[in-house]
């Protein structure tokens, strides 16, 4: 009897070079553009520091448990999303298919956002920055009208970058410069994901760590700018009254959920390349906490810069008023300064009220400028670019800022593409002998061709639609079914034994309670609230229309019926996969049960695969 040492079964599955690569990939996937341009905005409009309370509650009861569940699942089953859910139960295969579809839809539009970032990046090498000056009109007598009425920054974004049409029904033409940038972005994605985690594992060292360096640089620079402290005070001053508004809690829950990139299938794919004996509990807590800390860390430079921008705008407003008054009353220069402006105004108002009224002075209020908040693309491409023009050495800052945004988005794209790539690899769409490079090439090529429709004049309206409908409701539904599926179909006892085997210690009661009751309940409430809010008014969008009488305000329009149908389709398609696949298997089972030679499906267990 020879006792041969236990050899772990080599299943030829690629694996991470080291644990750090895996953690970094998960962090890179979770930390994305939303941490920089959505979280600070939410903090600002929901009462500053007070927002952190619902945020951390949601993190504790929704974010970390769901993250732990996904990582444990992927690590135990060692398969991508479709394979994993098929293994748990063929009736739940639809959950995997739904995740896969959402990953595809999100990859398509997310890379187009990166295209815009790339376009701004390559334009940052110009002196002066192209979004700082208005171009002249045809006969060189003045500035371009559209630019003059709005601002140079708005003009560069809406006209020179997007070449936006005034209505979603007008598609406009393909913008060739955006096509070039889109091709480059997909080429970069292909370069990094060409061999799956072999290549993304190397690329992630740069794309996940670089943004932190840039954020630190911006933090140091931002804190030295005048007006930074006003911005920070404004951001963090807690206003506990906002907590009475249920909207705040909803926003906190959705922010945590979407920020951690749950239910995309990418995290399951990442974890599936791990050795099974790995502490997934610690990993989940680490990734979630790093993600939230990054959001907080990013909001400091963002708000320093916004405070600087508001202060500069306030000073400009004051200066313009002062010049007007000086010119009108022929007072000597520098007689009225910003400090004694209010006393002068009151004096002049009492002595020459008609003259003052005739000047039509704008009221300058710092609060008003601080209140002009923006999130999403508006923050990055309009507000921040405006602030960058005001900084000394603006090209360097612009280049740094856009490379940072690009790295943030790229590391999230890796997770999205992995969520598409791994299930396809397992389904063996292409023969085993064909190289992996071919599959990733096909995915990137097809995605590029489909994403061309986002480079049309109406492209940005469509991206808003995808963002609002494809990447919101389906994720909530899929996550809900994930938790229910693992807890009640795979059964919590089996799963806790599996996790115990993987981590080497007993599953804490906290996880059991949150998985069984709290997280599904929270998800259900969030889903209902979300859908109710969407249903309250007809879906509308704001369009950039130079011919609108309220220009430069954006025109509020309602989606035409065919667009609304597409919105519903986008939201419903991934969700409907779940019952459809279950139904399909039910029918197959009924047909098979008539055949006596059929075998019952094998009962799967984590430990079974490796002993």
């Amino acid at each position, binding site marked *: 009897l020879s006792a041969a040492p236990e050899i772990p079964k080599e299943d030829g599955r690629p694996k991470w070079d080291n644990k750090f690569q895996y953690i970094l990939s998960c962090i890179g996937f979770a930390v994305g553009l939303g941490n920089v341009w959505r979280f600070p905005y939410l903090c600002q409009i929901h009462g500053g520091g007070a927002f952190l309370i619902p945020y951390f509650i949601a993190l504790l009861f929704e974010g970390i448990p769901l993250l732990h569940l996904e990582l444990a699942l992927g690590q135990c089953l060692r398969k991508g999303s479709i394979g994993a859910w098929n293994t748990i139960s063929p009736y739940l295969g639809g959950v995997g298919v739904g995740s896969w579809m959402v990953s595809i839809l999100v990859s398509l539009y997310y890379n187009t956002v990166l295209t815009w970032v790339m376009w701004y990046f390559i334009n940052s*090498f*110009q002196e002066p920055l192209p979004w700082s000056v208005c171009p002249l009109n045809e006969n*060189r007598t003045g500035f371009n009208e559209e630019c003059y009425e709005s601002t140079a920054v708005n003009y560069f974004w809406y006209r020179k970058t997007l070449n936006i049409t005034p209505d979603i029904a007008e598609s406009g033409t393909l913008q060739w410069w955006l096509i*070039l940038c889109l091709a480059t972005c997909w080429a970069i994605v292909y370069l990094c994901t*060409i*061999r799956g985690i072999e290549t993304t594992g190397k690329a992630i060292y740069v794309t996940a760590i670089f943004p932190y360096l840039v954020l630190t640089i911006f933090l140091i620079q931002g804190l030295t700018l005048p007006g930074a402290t006003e911005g920070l005070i404004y951001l963090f001053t807690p206003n506990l009254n906002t907590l009475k508004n249920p909207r705040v809690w909803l926003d906190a829950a959705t922010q945590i959920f979407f920020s951690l990139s749950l239910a995309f299938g990418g995290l399951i794919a990442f974890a599936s390349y791990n050795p099974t004996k790995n502490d997934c509990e610690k990993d989940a807590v680490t990734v979630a906490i790093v993600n939230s800390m990054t959001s907080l860390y990013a909001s400091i430079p963002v708000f320093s810069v916004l405070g600087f921008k508001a202060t500069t705008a306030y000073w400009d407003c004051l200066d313009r008023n002062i010049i007007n008054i*000086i010119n009108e009353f022929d007072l000597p220069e520098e007689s009225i300064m910003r400090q004694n402006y209010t006393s002068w105004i009151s004096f002049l108002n009492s002595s020459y009220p008609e003259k003052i009224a005739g000047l039509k002075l704008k009221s300058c209020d710092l609060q008003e400028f601080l209140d002009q908040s923006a999130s999403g693309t508006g923050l990055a491409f309009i507000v921040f670019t405006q602030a960058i023009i005001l900084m000394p050495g603006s090209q360097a800052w612009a280049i740094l800022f856009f490379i940072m945004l690009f790295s943030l988005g790229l590391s999230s794209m890796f997770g999205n593409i992995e969520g598409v790539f791994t299930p396809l690899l397992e389904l063996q769409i292409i023969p085993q002998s064909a190289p992996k*490079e071919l599959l990733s090439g096909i995915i990137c090529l097809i995605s590029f061709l489909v994403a061309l429709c986002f480079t049309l004049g109406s492209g940005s309206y469509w991206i808003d639609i995808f963002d609002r409908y494809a990447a919101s409701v389906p994720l909530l539904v899929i996550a809900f079914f994930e938790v229910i599926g693992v807890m009640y179909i795979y059964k919590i006892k089996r799963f806790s034994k599996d996790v115990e085997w993987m981590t080497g210690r007993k599953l804490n009661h906290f996880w059991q309670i949150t998985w069984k009751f709290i997280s599904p309940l929270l998800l259900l409430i969030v889903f209902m609230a979300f859908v109710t809010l969407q249903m309250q008014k007809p879906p509308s969008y704001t369009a950039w229309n130079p011919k609108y009488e309220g220009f430069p305000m954006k025109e509020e329009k309602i989606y035409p019926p065919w667009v609304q149908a597409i919105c519903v389709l986008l939201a419903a398609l991934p969700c409907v996969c779940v019952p459809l696949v279950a139904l399909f298997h039910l029918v197959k089972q009924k047909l098979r049960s008539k055949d006596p030679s059929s075998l019952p499906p094998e009962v799967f267990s984590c430990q079974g695969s490796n002993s």
Partner: protein
Amino acid sequence: MLRALLLILSVVAIAHAELCKPDAQNAFKVRISIKTALGDNAYAWDANEEYLFKAMVAFAMRRYSSKSTTQISNVLLCNVTDRVSFWFVVTDSSKNVTTVPGSEVEAAIRMNRNRINSAFLLSDKTLQFLKITSTLSPPVEPSTPVWLIVFGVVLCLIVAGIVFLIVSGIQKHKKKNKESTERENLEEKVEVTLENGIPCEALDLKAGHINGVFAADDERFTSL
């Protein structure tokens, strides 16, 4: 004699006052912002600066109309305020007590705006002629847009990276194929005879196998 002189002077003064006043015909308002332009190096606006201004306007008129008849005394300044702002008008010495048409003055100033600005170390914004618009300079546009160059560089790097990875992948694939075919060939040549799961060659080479069941403690074994 003296009385006549006084009379003429007063007439001239009154005439001048009539010609140069705010919103007079052919008069222009000038607004100067020295402190904004020069900060600490600002000079004070005094009679000497006014003299220079009159000289510059006269210079501009001379260059424009190419006749040397405009004198410094033809330029009249009035209503100088602390701002510093004032009105000026150019009289025509050939015709009595009239002013040069505004369009001529405007054209002359426009033509020589640069010279006038640099005489005072100011710019179009800080030395304003209120009714005279300045021509906007076109933005500097390089022949090839800069972004296209940067884009070209980025794209070349990426394509080089992709080609490198694909080629190295193909090479690795070929090497693996070659290795596996070599191994297959090797295994085909050797026919392995097995006895109890142990290849015969192993039995020949070593002097037997130690049977673990009987290997209790550190007993010495007699070699076979």
